[in-house]
Structure formats: C-alpha cells, structure tokens
C-alpha cells in the first residue's frame, strides 16, 4: 500500500518535473478518490466523485458555489467523514490516519482563520508549533516564508492590519511551514482584487515549479485556466467533465465565441434569427453567444443581416463556455 509513497522530507533537488498528461502517467499517485459520497441528512453534497492526482500535478476542482468542492477538500484532510467511497492520501485513509495525512498536507481553507490579534510572524511560528516543529527549524523557516509571501516588512504587524490579499498570502505561507508535498487550496483568491490575485498566482506558480502538488478549488474559470494542469468540472456534487483546460475547451466548445448584446428585451428574439450561424447559439439574459471556429466571419454575417448589436466581442473560448455547455448555467457569481 505504500509502494507509491515518495519521499516527502524536503523539496526536490532536481528541476520541476515536466507537466502535462504524458508526464503525469509516470508519476506516483498521491491522492486517489473513488466514488466519494458525502450526505448531510437527506442532502447529498458530494455524489460519487472519483479522481486521481499524480505527484507534482496541479489539479483543480472547478464548480459553482455549493458544488461540493470544500466538502471534498475537507474529506481529503480527514476533517469531514465520508458517507461512502474510498480515499487515499499517500496511500493512507485520512479518516483512520488523520494526523499523519495532515502532516503530509498543507491546507489553505476557504475562509482565513489567522489569529488576528497576533503578529504576522507569531502566526507562522504558532502554526509551526502545531506540527511539532522545533524552534531551531522554525526561526529561519519563518523568515523564509515571510520572504516567499512578500510579507517580510509586515512581520511585526498585527494580522488585523493586513489587506485581504496579504492575509491570503500569509495563510498560504502558513500552510507551507511543514514543507508539504501536497497543498490543498480552497478558493485561494476568491474575494481578492485582480492585482492581489495575480500576485498570489505568481506565488502558486513558484510552488508548482518546486514540484509541490497543488489541489485547488475555484469557481473562477480564469484561475483554473491559469493554474491547473488538469481539472474536474463539478456541479451538484458530480463530475461533469475532466481534462486539461485546453482539452475541455476543445471537447466542449469551439475555438472562438462571439458575444453580442442587443439589450435585455431583444437578446432572446435576435437569438432566434441567428440560430443558424456558427456551431451553437446560447441566449443568456444579458447577451447572446455564438460558438464558431471563426468569430470574425460570424460577426460579419450578423451585421450583413442588418442586425446591429449594442456591443460585440470576439474572444477565445474559455472554461466558462465549457461550464455553460455542460450545465446550461453560467459559472460566474
């Protein structure tokens, strides 16, 4: 049961492994979920989810609020008891070996739970103590983490005084105190402004380059596209699709999308008239989407029919479109 357990004692000395599906196949599986089910009374929050994460991969759970992402993450950490299915982290069942499994993991929960009354540095120190790490290890480690989180100049500030993005970075730094090889990130950038998100993404890229396995949940398709090698699209506790962002877009969408706005009262009616253009037309309350290989050509055809949208835009397909195709609903909040 432990033949796939790699050393987790320190960061890998070799350069980051090559990413992508081909490389993934050769690497040991660090997380294996089989038919995971979680029920709260009659309500089924997670409804038979299966996936495998090889070491070093950046794996995402993309889905709207309430899809069951956080519940899945908590089951991985062994702090939510599954109703059914099998789960192995480094070959261990988190329900039976909670402390060992959690010693393997770094966890960034959806909601920050920093001690706001303590200083930034003390938050890291205290967290390291939870892992039984000696002060001799923690002293330099904490400085290194502060540096990584770009918080060195805030080391003596109370957490109270940090911005949302800084708190999030501190939470991520904190989760790295035991040098985990697997990092669970539950909605790492939700609620942050675009600039703060980019800073965070940059930090996560660094970790990925260092070979840390990232498992992250998000309901932002741009985040999933940025960070994930591979992801599952989750809705109502079930997996709707699985693949790399590019694969999913290829499989479930067209290369380009034309977004047209005719005004809320006309969108549906116009959609009828242009239903034959492109591969597929979606009428949303606020806009009409036409899926096509060549967006510009479709846009020209629309104009040629004498229709004049208030705004028009040709863009590449995104995971948002994949989600729309799979569920008929929009992913955005």
């Amino acid at each position: 049961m432990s033949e796939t357990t790699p050393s987790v004692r320190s960061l890998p000395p070799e350069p980051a492994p090559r990413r992508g599906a081909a490389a993934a196949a050769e690497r040991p599986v660090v997380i294996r979920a089989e038919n995971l089910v979680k029920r709260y009374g009659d309500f089924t929050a997670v409804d038979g989810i299966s996936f495998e994460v090889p070491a070093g991969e950046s794996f995402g759970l993309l889905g709207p609020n309430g899809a069951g992402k956080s519940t899945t993450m908590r089951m991985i950490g062994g702090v939510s008891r599954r109703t059914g299915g099998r789960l192995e982290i480094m070959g261990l069942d988190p329900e039976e070996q909670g402390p060992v499994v959690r010693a393997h993991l770094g966890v960034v929960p959806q909601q920050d739970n920093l001690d706001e009354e303590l200083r930034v540095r003390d938050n890291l120190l205290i967290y390291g103590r939870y892992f039984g790490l000696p002060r001799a290890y923690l002293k330099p480690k904490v400085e290194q983490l502060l540096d990584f989180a770009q918080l060195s100049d805030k080391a003596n500030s109370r957490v109270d005084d940090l911005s949302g993005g800084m708190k999030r970075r501190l939470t991520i730094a904190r989760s790295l105190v035991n040098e985990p090889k697997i990092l669970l990130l539950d909605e790492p950038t939700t609620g942050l402004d675009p600039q703060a998100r980019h800073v965070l993404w940059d930090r996560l890229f660094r970790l990925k380059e260092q070979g840390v396995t990232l498992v992250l949940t998000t309901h932002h398709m741009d985040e999933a596209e940025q960070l994930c090698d591979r992801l599952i699209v989750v809705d109502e506790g079930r997996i709707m699709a699985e693949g790399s962002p590019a694969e999913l877009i290829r499989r479930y969408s067209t290369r380009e999308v034309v977004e047209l706005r005719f005004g809320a009262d006309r969108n549906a009616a116009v959609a009828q008239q242009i239903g034959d253009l492109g591969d597929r037309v979606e009428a949303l309350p606020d806009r009409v989407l036409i899926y096509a290989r060549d967006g510009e050509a479709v846009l020209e055809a629309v104009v040629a029919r004498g229709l004049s949208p208030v705004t028009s835009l040709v863009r590449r397909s995104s995971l948002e479109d994949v989600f729309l195709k799979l569920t008929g609903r929009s992913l955005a909040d």
Partner: protein
Amino acid sequence: MRTSTTPSPRPALPPPGPEELARRGRRFGVWYFAEHQLLAMRSYLSVIVAFSVGHPLLYLVAMGVGLASLVDANGGGDFGGVDYLVFIVPALLATGAFMAASGEFTWPIMDGFKWHRLYYGPLVSPLQPWQIAAGHTLAVAIRLFSQSLVYYLIVAAFGAVPSGFGILSVVTATLAGLAIGTPLMAYAATIREEKAQFVMIQRFGVMPLMLFSGTFFPLTNLPVFLQWIGWLSPLWHASEIGRVFSYGYDEPLWLSIAHVAYLVALAAGGLALAFRTYRQRLVD
C-alpha cells in the same frame, strides 16, 4: 536548487517527516495548542492582571478591611474564631479564579468556532479536536494558577493566611475555575449563534453562585432552602477546602475529600463532554 528568484534569507533544515510530526502531535498536541493560547494571553496581560488580581483585591479592601472592622467588632465567633479577613480570603481567591474561568471558557470558545474560526487552523494540522479542547483547558489552568498564586502571595504578605498549607488553596481555586469552566466550554461548543447566552450565564449563573456559595458568610447562615445552591456550587466547595488549608477550618475529613472529589469530577466530566462537543462540531 530553488527556483525562487527572491533569495531566501537562510535555508532551513528539512523538517522531520510526516510520521514523526504526527507522532509529536499525538504526544504533545495538547501543549502545542496551549502554547498558542498562552501567547495570545500575553498580548492582554495587563487586562488579566487588572481583572484577576486587582478585582479580588478591591473586594478584599472593601469587605475584608471595611466590613471586617464592623463584623469583628461584633464578635467574629461565626467564622471559626478567625478574623473576618482570614475567613474571606480563601473564598475570594476561589472567586477570582471562578470569575476568570467563566470568561475564558465562553467567549474564546466562540472565537475558536465562529468569529475568527481559530480552531480551523489546528484542525488541519496533526492535532485532533480533543487536543484543542484539552489545550485550551491547560492554558486557562495555567492562567488561573498564576493569577491565584500572585493573589495568594499578596494576601499572605498581609498576614491573612495563617497556615502554610494555604498555598494549596491556590490549587483548589484553580480547580474551582476548571469545575465551572469545562462544562461551560462543552456547552459553548454547541452554540451556533451567540445571542445573549454568555451574558445570561454571567448574570444568572456566575453572580448568584458567588453570592450564595458561602463566600462572604457561612453557608449555614442561609435558610436551608437556599443552602443547596452552595452544595452544588463548585465555588462553595473550593472556598470550604481553601479555608481548611488556609487556617485549619474544622470540618470532617470526609467532607474535605468530598469537596475536592466534587471539583475534580466536575472538571473532568466537563472536559470529557467537551471532547465530544468539539469533535461533533469540528468533524462532520
């Protein structure tokens, strides 16, 4: 080779492996959590000192000196032949710990589960829920013991503790705090919305217990139909045993043992209950 472009100040040694970290967590997790709480207490140390030492000292001056002159002038026979001051010191000592505990085992618990969600940090470390409850209890026990010790040394310096065994009343005062505290902690862990429960507990639980626990006058001065409050109150038991230690208050040995046993039973029972409520709340 690190790919990070920002240079790390000093490379840290690799940490011990997960198995070892988990082993440490199982062994010392209670202490690890207590460390956090003690560090947090340090940041409001002045408040703790003012509240837990200053407050009972105020009582001591008002009751022990002011009221005592009146009481003693009327022949202090009711108090086992000792000065009124000597009579109330053990009770005030226990009361200080009791009051502090009623705060430490309520609001910080809500902070752990709900307000700042502090418990959800250690929850995803190797620690287990029961260790969070036990660690909090340990940290508060250390606080109660320290404040009681400081208070004891002050009153002893004023000659208000005739017997050297009085130092043991510091322990029983701490126990009184835990006896009220751990059941409160078990209860606090079940509260989803803090409306006014804690304030109600203070007003209609803690305060009446303080008044009817033989603190300022012997319980036997109360009508019998009110004395049961004292029998149930950890504060009465702690005050009585404190008196035994402080000035050799004369009571049967079995009763002294019963006082201690009652306090230990409440503290241990409350803690066991808290292990359950913590687990139920943190792991669903």
